């Protein structure tokens, strides 16, 4: 135990490990808060769909040789998010089908482009890294870290300032709009923030595993807690704890960061599921 602790202290003296830890925890916190809204509005798959769009955009950006990928990836993902979250009033294709379509479409096109035009010697390595985020989290620049901190502050402020509105719209969108609340603007804000978080979270877990960060904390918390406030608080805490544990384990055991964080989240879901079943039997 003493040895493990010493090892951790040694690893954390490296700046890139500290950056990874800070960014990982902040991303986990923001995505879990947003996840409560997405899960309750039945948009669990949005994270998945958007991350595939981001993957496609990333492929185009790296092939085009852009110095900063974000310039292309972020706007494309934001637009996709707005289109997907416009809850099907006038859409001809049902919501879940639209998400599935865009998601696999972007994935296929992205992979195709990377294979056809990439200058890199190791295409499958690049693809794997983008999909599962193996190296990105360990090669963060200071700018990336500040970007993450800024984004997390925005998400947390959004939740504090609009907490009551978030509840009202998530529970009953129609009722909220009859009270004169600007529901459309609210949904737009949720869509844009979702896109930002997805793009940032690609650094941590890669595009295939992002939905895990979005849905697991909310789903676990809903097994045990029965009020909105307690679910939000529990999701945030749980997600931060799982991300911290996962990153430490992956540093010590040299496992892939993203997959380890998700595995810890799955374990936590198991625990919460059991606790929930016990509580309800009483």
């Amino acid at each position, binding site marked *: 135990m003493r040895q493990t602790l010493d090892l951790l202290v040694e690893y954390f003296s490296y700046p890139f490990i500290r950056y990874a830890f800070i960014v990982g925890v902040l991303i986990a916190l923001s995505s879990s808060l947003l996840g409560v809204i997405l899960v*309750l*509005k*039945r948009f669990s798959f949005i994270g998945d769909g958007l991350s595939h769009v981001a993957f496609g955009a990333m492929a185009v950006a790296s092939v085009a040789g852009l110095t900063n990928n974000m310039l292309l990836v972020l706007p494309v993902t934001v637009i996709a998010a707005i289109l997907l979250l416009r809850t099907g009033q*006038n859409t001809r294709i049902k919501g879940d089908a639209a998400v599935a379509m865009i998601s696999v479409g972007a994935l296929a096109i992205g992979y195709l482009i990377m294979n056809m035009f990439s200058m890199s010697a190791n295409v499958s390595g690049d693809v794997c890294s983008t999909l599962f985020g193996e190296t990105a989290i360990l090669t963060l620049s200071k700018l990336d870290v500040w970007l993450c901190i800024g984004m997390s502050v925005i998400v947390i402020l959004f939740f*504090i*300032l*609009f*907490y*009551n*509105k978030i*509840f*009202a719209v998530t*529970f*009953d969108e*129609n*009722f*909220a*709009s*009859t*009270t*004169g*609340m600007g529901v459309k603007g609210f949904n737009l804000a949720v869509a844009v923030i979702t896109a930002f978080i997805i793009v940032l979270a690609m650094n941590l877990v890669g595009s295939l595993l992002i939905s895990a960060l979005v849905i697991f904390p909310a789903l676990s918390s*809903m097994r045990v*807690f*029965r*009020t*909105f*406030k*307690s*679910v939000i608080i529990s999701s945030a805490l749980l997600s931060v704890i799982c991300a911290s544990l996962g990153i430490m384990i992956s540093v010590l055991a040299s496992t892939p960061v993203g997959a380890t964080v998700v595995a810890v989240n799955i374990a936590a879901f198991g625990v919460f599921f059991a606790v929930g079943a016990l509580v309800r039997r009483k």
Partner: protein
Amino acid sequence: MPQIICRDLVLGYDKKIVSRNISFEVNRGDYLCIVGDNGSGKSTLMKALLGLLPTMGGSIELSDGLSQSDIGYLPQQTEHQRDFPASVEEVVLSGCIGHKGFLPIYRMSDKIRAHKNLRKLSIDGLQKRPYSELSGGQQQRVLLARALCAADRMILMDEPVSGLDPAATLEMYRITESLNRDDGMTVIMISHDIDAAVRYATHILHLAHEPLFFGTKEDYIKSGAYRGAGEGGINDETDA
């Protein structure tokens, strides 16, 4: 004193007309039941009255100092609300969402109002309970308390007794009657149940794409629309 005046309304979705020629008036203190078969345009009309759906023709005029946000709304329960993590208090307070300005917290007056409505509907013992664990009748009363927090002059109810057991149904009708008679609220209710509509309402609007009937309950009972409905089918003479 008229509160809502509808003239020659044309309603529909996606340029497809669902109903037309709807003209009626709602006065302060009225208890109007909107009856008709499925697909006759009842819900469409309600959405238009709430401002959730633009009208395709005609006009809806609010008077007597009434504005859109003075109309309380009791919607039908949606599937995703049944397992939604929320306490009764959280749901009822969310009715006050339109009151406050930019402040992120509810004011004391909102909390007092929420408690008053909880007590009025005799669910004040349930406020810390999870909404998802309540019975159907209790859930309906929670949503009604939320609507009363939003507005106390007029309430629109969309099939308020659907899915309730007979005792809860009776209780719901009793509460509505008391809101109308004792608190002077104007009630507009969408209903399948023509017998109950005739028993409790003061006015009836019978829709079948076009209004088959609009007037007082007493006139409705004598009318052909009521007898047609009583025989188990509404004569749809209009081709929409």
